[in-house]
């Protein structure tokens, strides 16, 4: 099949960027979307032009490195699928596709379709973990975990931090990402001691990074390649409110630093 592509080209963070038209010829239905771009790039290189930069790594839908907008939809038309796993059999000859980087103020463009998602790492660093010193763990079977909880925790833990949720959200909210980690750890007995602090610290960091707020639109769930449910956002709000109401939160985790007001983010 042959396709018309309009691809966002932006040399670096300072360049204003523009859409450029390309033709993708002789595309096989068995190719992945990224393999289709590989073919286009090989042609560009042969013509002496710069190939289209896009992030990718595992190409099996688990590392979370790839992702861009295809006709306004994060990761394209297939549900529960990253662009590396999106195959060309879902497109037809003559299709015209608009390919753009993630849209979010918190994810600045580095080049073409490549964006900076380091804000996600900082949200995890704010509290997305269980503090357990290496070597200090009790026997693995010492704490039974109800199977239902383990399954729900796993559903949330499946997040690959690709950023599709943020890119699709009209508010640019990272609530699905943040909620997924809060839900994963909050559902397990091991995660209880830090549950309040975690929720507040992560939400505060999320706000600081410039992500917007969740207004329950649900676009994030619709495009999530791991089909993470909106429930995780409800869990995040619940944990956050519980922490704020009971006053047991300590944002930033450090007793020696002045605590931030937990609701500050929501009032903005």
């Amino acid at each position, binding site marked *: 099949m042959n396709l018309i592509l309009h691809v966002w080209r932006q040399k670096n963070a300072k360049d204003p960027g523009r859409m450029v038209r390309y033709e993708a010829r002789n595309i096989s239905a068995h190719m992945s979307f990224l393999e289709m771009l590989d073919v286009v790039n090989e042609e560009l290189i042969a013509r002496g032009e710069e190939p289209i930069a896009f992030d990718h790594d595992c190409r099996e839908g688990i590392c*979370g490195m790839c992702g861009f907008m295809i006709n306004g939809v994060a990761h394209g038309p297939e549900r529960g699928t990253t662009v590396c796993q999106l195959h060309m059999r879902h497109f037809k000859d003559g299709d015209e596709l608009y390919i753009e980087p993630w849209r979010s103020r918190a994810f600045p463009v580095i080049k073409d379709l490549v964006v900076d998602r380091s804000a996600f790492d900082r949200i995890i660093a704010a509290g997305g973990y269980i503090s357990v010193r290496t070597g200090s763990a009790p026997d693995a079977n010492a704490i039974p975990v109800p199977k239902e909880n383990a399954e729900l925790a796993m559903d949330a833990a499946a997040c690959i*931090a690709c950023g599709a949720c943020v890119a699709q959200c009209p508010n640019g909210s990272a609530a699905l990402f943040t909620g997924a980690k809060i839900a994963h750890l909050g559902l397990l007995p091991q995660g209880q001691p830090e549950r309040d602090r975690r929720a507040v610290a992560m939400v505060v960091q999320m706000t600081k990074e410039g992500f917007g707020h969740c207004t329950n639109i649900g676009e994030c769930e619709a495009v999530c390649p791991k089909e993470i449910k909106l429930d995780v956002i409800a869990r995040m709000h619940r944990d956050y409110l519980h922490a704020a109401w009971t006053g047991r939160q300590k944002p930033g985790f450090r007793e020696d630093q002045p605590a931030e007001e937990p609701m500050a983010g929501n009032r903005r």
Partner: protein
Amino acid sequence: MELNSKVPDVPIEQAWDRRKFEMKLVNPANKRKYNIIVVGSGLAGASAAATLGELGYNVQCFCYQDSPRRAHSIAAQGGINAAKNYQNDGDSVFRLFYDTVKGGDFRAREYNVYRLAQLSLNIIDQCVAQGVPFAREYGGLLENRSFGGAQVSRTFYARGQTGQQLLLGAYQALQRQVAAGQVKMYARHEMLDLVVIDGRARGIVTRDLITGRIESYAADLVILATGGYGNVYYLSTNAKGCNATAIWRAYKRGALFANPCFTQIHPTCIPVTGEYQSKLTLMSESLRNDGRIWVPKRKGDTRPPDEIPEDERDYFLERKYPAFGNLVPRDVASRNAKAVCDEGRGVGPGGYGVYLDFRDAIKRLGREVIEERYGNLFDMYERITGEDPYRVPMRIYPASHYTMGGLWVDYNLMSTIPGLFVAGEANFSDHGANRLGASALMQGLADGYFILPYTVGDYLASNKLEKVDTTHPAFRSAEAEVACNIKRLLDVRGSRSVDSFHRELGKLVWDYCGMSRTAEGLKYALKKIPELREQYWREVRVPGESEEFNQSLEKAGRVADFFELAELMCLDALHRNESCGGHFREEYQTPDGEALRNDDEYCYVAAWEYRGEDNAPALHKEPLTFKYVQPAQRSYK
């Protein structure tokens, strides 16, 4: 050069305890004065960086991805082994040790493997405490399954995403140390050289992949946890960015490279569909627990699988290996799949595929059970192939997956360069000539959480290290070499893309140094690879500049190193006149086509020393002795 493995001279079960006691400790107040560089943020790198940070060292951790959470450990599907014996089915530390030594076809160091089996217990404890959502039984206790080649159920798993969950556990521990200021993370940085001063590893040179800047970092020691070199084959289950550059540059700075020809071809991957194919996708080997592997008995049988009656199907693994059936180790399963395809009985387009059929399992257990066990794998298969594996058998074919070879390390995981430690797949240590399923995750985490934190401290406490910073001339000259190498690549301005060369190299290595090898083929490859490499340096086209985000340039440097490594692999494969594990030399096989080892002449680790561009590398041998598991012909019948 004498290779001293530094294995403690005590009975095997006391060895690690003894070593821990012998090791010197760093005064807690002094730990913050030491700088440690960790390259790589997969299971081994992230767990080492997090634990060393937690102990109080200053850690700098580097990865080429945009976040440490994306390292390719994340893609491991099936599980992680531990000798917990929670299933009461006869498992023990000794049995896991025994299985690993035997599975590795008696080419691993016994003492290392025993320690790995011991530490497997701590790993599961650690990961559960971190919140890794392992599969559970209804009573709330941990669930296990049996996995490729094991007759006990000792594999812990989190659906088909075990690697992801273990890595996220380590990543979260790492981010906790980042927040605490103990670890500084450098994402989108690629290590391009190792800096050795007065014979010790003292730093690295990197390229910032966003700005293209060449930068130097100094430290008291360097840990490489940069993974394997499976991408030398171009098509592999590795991530596209996985590369051998860090270990290769270390090799060129004096670290010996051990057993480069020991590569693992994984039996259950989705077959190639065309020339454009950019990578191969693994289907977890756990599928072999319930799926049955078969091909038609007749050559060139093109009927759809459901029209081939039972008595015209050849369940070749069950037929040849009645005791282990579809669960034979990876090398055995892969070779047999290749053999039936070479006979012309392969299925699917191109004829390089075999069926993995769940019909009987669905009939026996019901679709729901299969869905619960393998749902996400089945979805993934359907997404890629467009076929529904609940109705049509999967088609699978072997693909390059893991490399057992790597930088030589002693019992303390230190290479032949003092101060250069190597962990995870990047070292050669524990898997011998073949790795058992669910053992890679175990080794990565054992190295990072439980071994390096001790041995690194011992090194620091036992050696008086001069203060070194990046103003040292050694950094300047390494930076200049890196810059010169980059300029050379950009200046070729030829006509062929990096990928086209990589694909051609990969095919050459796959054909002659892949699943089976011959002296003749290896000699041919040894002639062809240098020719192709010369052509590469004459004709490659690397668009763009050095001082910018330039993915073609990143690839170009990695492929240049793969060319050199490919040659060493072939050289190693040619010298090893025996078959063992993943190294199958057609000249050396039993009458039934099994690998025929030669313990009299080749029971050693082959460690290669770089001696400059114009000289052949020198071979050094570390003899292997087996006191606890007697080498025997592996038999899975």
